[in-house]
């Protein structure tokens, strides 16, 4: 088997594994929706909450005239939301705790999700 063929098989194997793992039961549950507005470089509200062990869908409406990037290290998501549009970010079911989020383009725009 050539080196290229072996690498191709490994990549295909990995993609299959990802597809199987992504089809996890938790994503089939009804997600809790969290609505956020981004205006004048700030999240509103900046503190939100959600129940534990249920998937969460963030709906981030960017009212500013420039794009923002919703990002969170602990939630492990990032998504650019264009000016005057809405971004939808799906998050796995979470354990209780505090999860910070921010606009990666704006150091001052921050918020937190409390899961309980």
């Amino acid at each position, binding site marked *: 088997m050539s080196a290229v063929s072996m690498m191709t098989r490994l990549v295909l194997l990995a993609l299959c594994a*990802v597809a199987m*793992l992504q089809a996890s039961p938790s994503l089939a549950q009804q997600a809790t929706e969290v609505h956020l507005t981004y205006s004048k470089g700030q999240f509103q509200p900046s503190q939100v909450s959600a129940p534990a062990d249920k998937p969460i869908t963030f709906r981030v409406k960017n009212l500013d005239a420039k794009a923002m990037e919703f990002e969170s290290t*602990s939630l*492990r998501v*990032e998504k650019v939301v264009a000016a005057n549009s809405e971004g939808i970010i799906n998050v796995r079911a*979470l354990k*209780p705790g505090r999860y910070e989020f921010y606009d990666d*383009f704006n150091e001052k725009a921050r918020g937190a999700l409390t899961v309980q």
Partner: protein
Amino acid sequence: MALCATACLSFLGCANARAEDASSWRELETKYIFGFTTGSGIGLEGEKEFTVDTIGRFGKRDGHYAATETKYEFEFTPSQFIQIEFGALGSTHDIHGVTGLDDRSQFAFAGGFAEFRYLAIERTSNNPLSVTVAFEPNVRLIDETSGERVHNYEFETTVNADIELLKNRLYAGFNLLYEPEVTWTALDQTVREATVGGSAALSLRLMSNVVLGGEIWYLRHYDSPTLTAFTGDAVMLGPTLYIRFTPKMFMTAAWNTQVWGREVGNPVSLNLAEFQRHRARLKFAWEF
């Protein structure tokens, strides 16, 4: 000397760190803050990254020995638990007068690799521990040590764990490594070997974008993937540095020196047959 440098910089850092309020800092992605030790981070879903990651190895028992291997790497995070990386390998060898190795000065395309990382235990505000399991198959056309043309297949398996000891400030990292490989040389010889080891690292976040630390590695080499033919071991020690220049660009650097080692059947200090006197890592990454 490396230890002194680390201690001095750590001292300076502590003084500086007291002046900053770590609670206002963003959470840190830990994958690259420990030098050769890999943290548990797997990136953010939707994130893509291009990196140039060079590891240099310097010093054998005699003569002049300098070799590098560079990964030109694309990595992405397709889900909140998986990270995938792949890319090409380039190598350089500058060897003169080293016993057992041919003299050569060369730059070559050296092969390819892929890496699959799965986050097994995730950190939360109530749990400071995070653990990732990683598998990295490598295919090499150039021998890492000698620079000779070969066909080498390596399957690196690691467990990457880290603990946030102080919120946003102090982190400890731990790796376990099992790296079996098989090599077919140009003379049609088959060489099977394995390296196993573990590491511990401590990293202090001095500023929101600067992390300084130190790490120690213990490595064992076998002439068998089943770990039945032990040939020697070594301890490597040195400082680490991580700097985030912009929200989308960072670098990491590390220097390890072999401080202890032994070769089976050869009563000399250090193990310079399977390992090197020094190794260095320099990595630049661009996220998009």
